[in-house]
Each structure stands twice: as structure tokens, then as C-alpha cells.
């Protein structure tokens, strides 16, 4: 009895290991419906409407893909998950991609979701307007130290040779009180999420707001894009192509004004805390950032903007040397 038990203890892990190996080796080829994970960058809200839409309306299933759309968050990193095999596709910001490339991560960009970076600065228009970079002089500007917004703001300031002592940088956290109290002139927000909430509160108290969009001041810093691993692209190019086509078709459909109601109902199911009126505005702004004009196809990769993003990170010593990011961009949409 004891001997059998010992045998079982020795055999069981081996069996589990072998079965795992077989599953890995068989990979996608042995399965009819391909099971994959798609890790988002952030929580389920209006800014991921296309991803939710694809899942809910069977865009993947009808193409033979079994995709689990997984919520992101501050502690999630899609690129790491790709490398560790926990995800097959993911959403990552451009700076994440460039940092990962500079450390040898085998990651490729297969579509760029946001054509305009939603990260902008909100301000009260009755106090001032920012038409050009030098208008930032003398202002108290919120930045998240270590975050993208710090990088973008420092690039703007450097572009106009504005010294550190000509502005006051204010460390930003989740609490907007310093901005509501008017202690800070410009506050970084995601234009299509917190931006809407803050703006509505200020408008309710009779204040008018505006946004500083770095792209309009000449600084293009790419935001979220869809990524996969080099291995996935090389071993399963057809799956990658099918996935990206399914996903971008869903994005197109979800942002089509004709499907507005359907998209809003869907987002409302996941984001229960945001009032309907805010969701409507968030969806409209997301549309303007993902598809700023009819000419632009959703998912198009703006190579020049990626190159500028890399240059910015290089100038700010966030990466030690060039990574030639353009080599990691795979243009499925032209």
C-alpha cells in the first residue's frame, strides 16, 4: 500500500508535466477552436468598447477563435504576459513597447488603436488659454512622476526651452481635489474617461474647461496599441491576421454612430458606476480619438508618431539607445 502511494506521488507530477508538454506541443494545430487570451491595458470602460463589442457579438467565434478578453489594470503588463505565455494578444502603450524592445522583449505591434493620445491636460478656460507651448510659462502643471504625462510635458517644455523654474510641476495622484480647489492650473487626464467626469463637475459649477492636446503643440506620443509576440506572428501568422481583422471590424462597428445604442448598452453592463450621460460623451470622445477622420482606418499605425515617441524617450534617457521601433510595427491596415 505504502509502496503504491510512493509510486503515485512520484508518477503524478510526471504525468501532469507530460500532459502539459503535450498540450503545448500540440498547440493551436490540434484544436478546432483556438483558445487565446487577450489582455487589455485598463479596466472595462468606454475606451475599450471595440474589444468588448468583439467579444459580446461573436466576432472571434465566427472566425474560429476562442478569445477571452481579460481586463487590464495598473498591475497588469500585457507584454510580460505575452512572453510568459499567459496571453496571446494584448494592449500596451507605446512607451511600454519601446521600453520592452530596448530590453530585448520579442514584441510586435499589429495595430494602433488610438490615433490621438487621450492623455491631455484639462484647465479652466476663464483663467487662460494655451495656444502655444510658451503659454505654459508660469503655470502650475500636474504631472505623475514616472508616468507618460511627465515625459510628454517635459518634452513640450524642452521644445520651447522652458526651464524648470519657469513652471511649477505638481505631483498628481488619484485625488483631483487640488485641481478642483484651483491650486493646480493644468491637470493630466485621459480625455475619454476622467476628463469627462471632471469637466462635468466643473461645468455644473459654472466653469468652462479646455484641454491641452500635446499633438496640437507638435508632440506626438503614441498611446495604446495591440501587440503580440514575435513567436506568435512567426508560428501562427494566419491566426494573427484573423484576430486583428476580427478585432478591428468590431471596433469599426462599435464606433459606427448607427450602433451607438448597442455599444452604450454593452459598455453600461461592464461599467456600472459611470452615469449614462457620461458614457455617451466618453463614447463620442473615444470615437474622435480612435477614428479622427473618415479617411483613417481604425488600427492604422502612424510610423512617424512611433518614431517621434522613440526619439522623445531617447532624449529623456528613458531608453539607453535606439531600438528602431519601426521594425516592430506590422502594418495589417494601410
Amino acid at each position, binding site marked *: 500500500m505504502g509502496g503504491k502511494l510512493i509510486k503515485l506521488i512520484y508518477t503524478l507530477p510526471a504525468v501532469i508535466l507530460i500532459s502539459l508538454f503535450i498540450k503545448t506541443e500540440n498547440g493551436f494545430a490540434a484544436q478546432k477552436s483556438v483558445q487565446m487570451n487577450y489582455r487589455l491595458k485598463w479596466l472595462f470602460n468606454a475606451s475599450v468598447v471595440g474589444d468588448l463589442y468583439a467579444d459580446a457579438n461573436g466576432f472571434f467565434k465566427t472566425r474560429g477563435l476562442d478569445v477571452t478578453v481579460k481586463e487590464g489594470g*495598473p498591475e497588469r*503588463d500585457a*507584454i*510580460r504576459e505575452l*512572453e*510568459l505565455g499567459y496571453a496571446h494578444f494584448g494592449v500596451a502603450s507605446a512607451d*511600454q513597447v519601446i*521600453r*520592452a524592445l530596448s*530590453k*530585448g*522583449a*520579442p514584441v510586435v505591434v499589429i495595430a494602433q488603436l488610438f490615433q490621438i493620445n487621450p492623455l491631455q491636460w484639462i484647465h479652466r478656460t476663464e483663467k487662460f488659454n494655451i495656444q502655444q507651448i510658451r503659454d505654459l510659462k508660469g503655470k502650475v502643471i500636474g504631472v*505623475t*512622476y*514616472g*508616468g507618460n504625462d511627465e515625459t510628454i510635458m517635459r518634452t513640450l517644455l524642452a521644445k520651447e526651452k522652458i526651464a524648470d523654474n519657469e513652471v511649477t510641476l505638481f*505631483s498628481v*495622484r*488619484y*485625488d483631483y*481635489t487640488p485641481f478642483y480647489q484651483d491650486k493646480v492650473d493644468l491637470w493630466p487626464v485621459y480625455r475619454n474617461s476622467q476628463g469627462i467626469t471632471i469637466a462635468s463637475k466643473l461645468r455644473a459649477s459654472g466653469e468652462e474647461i479646455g484641454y491641452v492636446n500635446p499633438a496640437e503643440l507638435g508632440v506626438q506620443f503614441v498611446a495604446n496599441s495591440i501587440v503580440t509576440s514575435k513567436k506568435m506572428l512567426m508560428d501562427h501568422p494566419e491566426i494573427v491576421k484573423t484576430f486583428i481583422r476580427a478585432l478591428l471590424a468590431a471596433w469599426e462597428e462599435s464606433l459606427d454612430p448607427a450602433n451607438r445604442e448597442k455599444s452604450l448598452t454593452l459598455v453600461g453592463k461592464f461599467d456600472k458606476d459611470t452615469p449614462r450621460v457620461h458614457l455617451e460623451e466618453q463614447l463620442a470622445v473615444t470615437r474622435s480619438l480612435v477614428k479622427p477622420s473618415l479617411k483613417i482606418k481604425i488600427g492604422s499605425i502612424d510610423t512617424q508618431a512611433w518614431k517621434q515617441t522613440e526619439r522623445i524617450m531617447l532624449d529623456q534617457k*528613458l531608453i539607453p539607445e535606439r531600438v528602431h521601433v519601426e521594425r516592430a510595427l506590422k502594418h495589417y491596415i494601410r
Partner: protein
Amino acid sequence: MLLRRIYQFLIIYLLGLFLLLVIKYALNLSDYVIPGPVEIWETCRETLPRYFSDVMDTLSVAIIGQFISIVLAISIGVIGRQATWFGSFVKVAAYNFQAYPIVAIAPIVFILLGDGFISRLLIAAMICYFPLLLSVVGIMSEPISDIEHFYRITGRMRWQLEVKIRAFENLSKLTTVIAGSATLAMAGTIVAEFIAANAGIGYSIRIALYQSNLSKILVALFTIGVSLSVYQGMLEMAGYMINKRWKG
């Protein structure tokens, strides 16, 4: 005692690092997922002085926070040891207060008190005080019958004497708990800094996370571990000396 603490920490840290590197090379992971030894070393050379100063900042808050929590836990423990209605009320209130997760309370603290020193101190004390309280209540509620009986039948028992007897008889337990609570005070301060403060090693870790820089986090963990080992070693030595002096 102090040296033993430090080298024990170094063994654990190096084992952890070794395990990470084994995983990295076994799975052929890039430096983005797990940094290589050269990158870790270079990051260590670049950031160690700055992180050391950050850790000292955090440790100073943790020490004050721990002191406050010791005073608080002993005060509540002494009141709560009584089998009276008020004693039980204090105990229930203290327990209920701890039932709320600190990470949920911390943002409120930061909104009300700002992101400076006081908020960090308060959160450190809040995280540290409960285990201390449990031990103090446990120790203080347990009569030392052999000794207390004499004072009771002679009518000389006062609450101060009762507390002294129980503390003296459980001195080694108390000093061990106090030394152990240093870890909690440090963890509490780091959590506070991570959530909202503008200084300390928790704040630096948050920035490193924004930059997906695991090497910096490994260096931060090293500085935290070394500093905490030294502090705990010192507390243990102090406890040992107090025990020796009181009990001979």
C-alpha cells in the same frame, strides 16, 4: 544578533535573486520580464545611494509610527483587559476599526490630511498597531494567579500593579512582539507611500513600476531588507538587554 539578522537577510535575498535568474535563463525570458545580473548591478550602482536615503526617510516614519502604535496598543490593551462593559466596548471598537482594509481607508486619510508626513505616519501606525494590540490584550487579560493572589487577599492590588506584574512576567513575549511589529510599521509606511505620498521608498517603487523597471524594484527591496534587518536586530538587542537587566 545584529550581524546574524543581516546575513540571514542576505542569504534569503540572494536565494530569491538566484531563483529569479534561474527562471529567466530556463525560460529564456528577456530583460523586460526579469532583468539580467549586469543590469541589476548597474541599476544598483546608479540608484543605491538615492534609494538608501529614501529608505531612511521611510524608516524614520516607520519608527515613529511604531512608537505611536506601541503606546496606543498598550493603552487600549490595558483598558481592554478589564472584564467590564467599558473594557469589552474598547476591545470591540478596536477590533472593528481594524476590520476595514487600510488600503480602502488610506485614500480618505490622504484626501483629509494631504500627502505629507502625517498621513504616512498615521497609516504606518494603523497597520502596525493591531497585532500589537492583540498581543497586549492577550498578555494583559491573563492573570498571573500565583503572584496576584497574594496582593488580592492582602487588599494591596491596584491596576498599575496588575499591569506591571503581567508585563514583567511576559516581558520576553512583549519584546518579541514589538521587534516583530517593526516589519509591519515599515510595510505600512511603504503602502502609504505607494498609494499617495511624495517621498520615501514606496514612492520610488511606484515610479519604478510606472517605468516597468524591475531592476529598480529589486534594488529597492534590497535596501528595505537591509535597513529593516538592522532595525529589527537593534530592537532585539534592546529587548535582550531589558530582559537581562530586569530579570537578571
